């Protein structure tokens, strides 16, 4: 479904991605692991064109998208839930959703505002509240649901758990599992257990390169992988 081939991305003058390649098949849930600054965010941003790669190719359903404008990539069916959530401050919860609502752009409508508000009553209660005043967990929910409004077939989530309390993390995990039924997902995280639980495959990034990739089962069975790349060891 998505293939990222040897992309190099510069962040200002820092060589953030130094030849990253990924493959994601339809229906998969894949996790990107790695420490801070390893290039997880940049990889996701490069896929949606926010930090377009200087070299390499990104293909989505056989179309090359590495030079496409972000909004067109979004309309092709890739949505990003960014790291810091980037809720439109000053817009209410409902308005945040409406901005992303692709109604009228034809093609099977899975998510409607009424529908999601019904499905996620927590957001329904907050519908008229300024998005900036929500708690971290609420913002994260909103950011995910907002991404859904664009009718994605591939959902990218950048550290959906960052800074959230365990009980919220669990909720996010449940949501992720639920979405995985219908949507292909690539998410990044620093938490290994979370990745192991929700993803089938993982890539570990280190210094802008893929240091390891394989199934989460392999990773679980071989704790040394975690120790080597991710722990304090």
């Amino acid at each position: 479904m998505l293939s990222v081939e040897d992309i190099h991305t510069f962040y200002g003058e820092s060589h953030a991605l130094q030849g990253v390649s990924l493959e994601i098949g339809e229906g998969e849930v894949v996790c990107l692991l790695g420490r801070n600054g390893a290039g997880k965010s940049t990889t996701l941003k490069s896929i949606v064109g926010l930090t377009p790669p200087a070299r390499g190719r990104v293909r989505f359903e056989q179309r090359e998208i590495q030079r496409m404008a972000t909004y067109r990539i979004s309309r092709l069916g890739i949505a990003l839930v960014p790291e810091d959530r980037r809720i439109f401050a000053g817009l209410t919860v409902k308005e945040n959703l409406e901005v992303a609502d692709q109604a009228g752009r034809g093609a099977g409508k899975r998510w409607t505002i009424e529908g999601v508000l019904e499905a996620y009553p927590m957001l329904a209660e907050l519908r008229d509240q300024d998005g900036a005043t929500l708690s971290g967990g609420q913002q994260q929910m909103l950011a995910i649901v907002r991404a859904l409004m664009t009718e994605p077939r591939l959902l990218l989530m950048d550290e959906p758990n960052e800074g959230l309390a365990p009980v919220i993390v669990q909720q996010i995990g449940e949501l992720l599992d639920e979405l995985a039924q219908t949507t292909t997902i690539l998410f990044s995280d620093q938490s290994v257990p979370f990745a192991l639980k929700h993803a089938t495959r993982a890539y570990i990034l280190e210094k802008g390169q893929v240091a390891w990739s394989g199934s989460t089962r392999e990773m679980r069975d071989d704790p040394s992988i975690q120790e080597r790349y991710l722990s304090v060891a």
Partner: protein
Amino acid sequence: MESFAASLLNSLDIALLLFVIAVGLNIVFGVLNVINFAHGALYMLGAYFTFTIVNIWGLPYWPSLIIAPLAVAAVAIVIERVMLRYVYDRHITDSLLLTFALLLIIDDLVLMIWGPGIQVVEPPALLKGTFTVFGGRYPVYGLFVIFMGLVMVWGLWALFTKTRAGRIMRAASIDRDMAQTVGINVPMVLTGVFAFGAWIAAIGGVVAAPMRAIGPAMGDKIIIESFIVVVIGGLGSFPGTFLGAIVLGLIHGFGGRYLPDISLVLPYLGMALVLLLRPQGLMGGRGSA
């Protein structure tokens, strides 16, 4: 004393006209991060188009309220597409300089097309005449200006809060990248916002045409006034623009009368005080576009 009420009403019509002009400037600044020096020139174009429609084509006034702003918006689209969009990513001085150049160009083109004479557009029959408030006379047209201003306040408020287009504009002003990420065609939104700002300025021009003498460079004066309004109210703040316009309207409505010796200083003094005590403006802060 009887004219106090009339002065108050008068301050209000000055204020609402200022609001209509300044709000376009502020929207363009809020979304595009461009200080548009040519905004007053677009207002002037609105007035001149009205003059052409009413005095030269002989049409009634009302259609100009539709035609002239659309024509100015079309001009704005051309400006945005061929010039302005190339400087968004640069330092703010570049767009400042570019729109200053635009001001010179439009001013001179207007002089070439319409000549230097003073032009007057008659108000429509419906809006002629005066009525009495507390013993003072007040023109019906002033009420129309107030009405139009309030329609714009309401309309823009409704647009920003009730419609998807308004939310998209606000979203684009808050976070362009994120707006793109949720599928919004941001370059088109930017063109649209600039044209929209011009459209509003032109409405100001159409409304002003029957009450202000139309002449070359009539937009140059209004631009600094608009800066004052926007700064007092708050850069990027919609309700702030309204408040700023009211404040400046009152300064004009009463300052010249009660403090004639420092009447010219007052608006700038107000502006400086606001900047020093509350740089984000009276209503500034994050939030509505």
